[in-house]
């Protein structure tokens, strides 16, 4: 019985709104890292810009939801330009450090008491999702047999997966175009592409912007999913999780991020529920001196960290990837 609950609970998460968020974020990373070889470790920063400005437009400035969406997307383009100008000419690891630092700057600034009246400090923003709720065509609980969702959650994941599908098609079309081949060329050998007269810097910037836009959309969904936007949703680890999703599915593969997100959240939830069951109740299966209920909640992250290491060492191409596509190197 527990096994069935375990599987249905995991499946619920694997198809749910969280998986949508990470699929979107990882599609963005796929354009940047998978196809162009740009190590953007600041995807959480793009998510923060998207989520916060959509939420603040409605909740703080009283603008329309759609203005908020436009503002979020527009500012994420600005962020990509700001980040790209100093760093895209530098080696890959510099880009990694600068983007990770920028994401943290954004998170700490938006969550600060100084900007409390705009962005709500550590508690964040609420009451911005009305337009989105009103668009919900589902009025009753959606039951698919093994898994079931509340109408709002189903609307989230339904609209979310549609956006993911659009994103996948867009990336597919982009990457089979001549433009996409230039990106892959940059990843393989920047100097060769430059010698063909292409403006490498400009292509990298375009790639950074497109990936950042996907990050902003992921940010919208984080905010809508929790009906709250606060700094904890966009911590550094968020970016790391998105990378794990991408690498699990397979970088430089159109469907890599989608499969990665579903598998990642299935496994993470499975581990969480599994260790939860082991340590549950007054007389848990697992002796308390080995693992308490609180410690059990850490097991999934411990295993995830280990899995990311092993994945990168033994199967860097992920589930779907092609090893030849990943000849990225920094030095």
């Amino acid at each position, binding site marked *: 019985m527990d096994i069935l609950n375990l599987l249905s609970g995991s499946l619920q998460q694997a198809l749910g709104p969280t998986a949508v968020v990470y699929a979107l974020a990882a599609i963005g990373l796929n354009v940047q890292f998978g196809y162009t070889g740009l190590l953007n470790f600041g995807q959480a920063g793009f998510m923060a810009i998207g989520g916060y400005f959509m939420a603040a437009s409605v909740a703080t400035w009283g603008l329309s939801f759609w203005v908020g969406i436009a503002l979020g997307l527009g500012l994420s383009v600005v962020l990509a330009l700001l980040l790209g100008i100093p760093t895209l000419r530098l080696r890959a690891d510099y880009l990694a450090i600068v983007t990770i630092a920028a994401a943290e700057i954004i998170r700490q600034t938006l969550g600060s008491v100084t900007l409390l009246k705009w962005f709500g400090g550590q508690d964040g923003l609420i009451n911005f999702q009305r337009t989105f709720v009103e668009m919900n065509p589902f009025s009753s609980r959606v039951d698919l047999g093994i898994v079931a969702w509340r109408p709002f959650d189903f609307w989230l994941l339904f609209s979310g997966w549609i956006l993911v599908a659009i994103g996948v098609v867009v990336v597919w079309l982009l990457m089979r175009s001549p433009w996409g081949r230039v990106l892959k060329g940059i990843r393989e050998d920047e100097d060769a592409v430059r010698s063909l007269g292409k403006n490498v810097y400009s292509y990298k910037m375009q790639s950074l912007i497109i990936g950042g836009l996907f990050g902003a959309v992921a940010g919208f969904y984080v905010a809508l999913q929790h009906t709250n936007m606060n700094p904890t949703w966009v911590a550094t680890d968020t970016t*790391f999780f998105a990378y794990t999703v991408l690498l699990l599915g397979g970088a430089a593969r159109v469907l890599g991020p989608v499969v990665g997100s579903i598998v990642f959240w299935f496994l993470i939830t499975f581990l969480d529920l599994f260790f939860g069951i082991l340590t549950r109740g007054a007389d848990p299966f697992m002796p308390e001196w080995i693992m308490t209920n609180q410690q059990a909640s850490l097991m999934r992250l*411990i295993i995830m960290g280990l899995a990311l*290491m092993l994945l990168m060492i033994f199967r860097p191409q992920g589930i779907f990837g092609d090893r030849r596509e990943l000849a990225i190197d920094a030095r």
Partner: protein
Amino acid sequence: MRVRQSSAAALVLMTLFTVLGISGNAQAATPPATVATSADDDTIDVKGKLVDTREKPPAPVEGVQISVEDDAGELVGEATSDADGLFVIPLGADIDVVGETYTIKLDESTLPEGTELRNPDQVELERQVKISADISVTFPIGEGTVGTGWAVRALQLGVGGLVFSLLLAMAALGLSMIFGTTGLTNFAHGELITFGALIALFIDRLPGNITVGGMNITMVTAIAVAMVMSTLFGWAQDKALWKPLRRRGTGLIAAMIVSIGLSIFLRNLYQYFAGAANHNYSQWTSPSPWSIGPVLITPKDVGVIIFSTIVLVAVTLAIAKTRLGKATRAVSDNPALAASSGINVDRVISVVWAVGAGLAGLSGVLLGMTQGFDYQIGFKILLLVFAAVVLGGLGTVWGAILGSFIIGIFIEVSTLVVPAELKFVGALLVLILALLFRPQGLLGRAERVG
């Protein structure tokens, strides 16, 4: 509702005392007695407590006149601080008052002889009533800071910055050396820092104290053990993980992502064993500070400064003078050439990992002593370590140290102008701006960037 209001008031007061209690001392942060709430909850009051933070505990200041004016400059109310230093000025019912802005003034001529406002410009405070809750204000009183005030505060913050920079420098040196010899951007370096602090916590938590001739040396032992264990940990990590990866020819970006996995793995493992709560080491928790001129410094900080300076000087001298140090620099410069001139590259890298991890672990213990241990202590400063290393020049020894001093002192001193919560933001902005103008870092060579 009332409980929430008054505790919020106490919190505001506490924070302000802490922030402004500079020429007093850290103990000024004693929570003040809860300010009396007015009988009628619908009335909004301006209230506060005037204390002289030079005294310990802060002494109430009596007989000071406070007045409140509204937008138009009309006098709304007046009060005089009582024997407990408290004053309450009712503004009116909340429905009339919410949204209005008031100016709260302190009459300086009524201050007792010998006391002055900490910040002489702050005789007026403007407050907007945002919610239906009383407004708490504070006017820090102490020695006048006329003239020298700004400089003294800068100096005091500079001392704090110096302590932090030294700890940062030890961590940064390790990161930079590992990068220099192996090319690895190690995102798990923060966990090497935490490792030292964790081992020290474990030693500290062993039952009983470790004493030699009546002297309690628990912490000294903890520091020594943490350093040794960190060194071993670094050496073992290289042997078990990074060396095989180098043998396999794993790319640098792949290795970077492996280090991210390691960071997530170790950080959660630490939390598994140490819990999420903040812990303090048992010794030297709140020593009373010495005053050197106008600056206050705790004996612990002096100890940290001296000890870490010795360690840093020793390590940099070793890198500059010894055969192994020269070999390390040769490997940093060009591994293939170093290998072909007879240097055992693998052994050099092993030593670098051991020394780098030892330095990081030491910086972790000392950091834990100054700000308390938690399982993310290293992860939280990882970006600052990166900032220091990149600012100074990735892979350079002197650059890492110089960068640490700039970042460490900047972080503290910048709180003169930016809110303390944003001090890390300022340091990270410095990093990005520095890259814009000098991408190879202050002491790096241009060709390293490529």
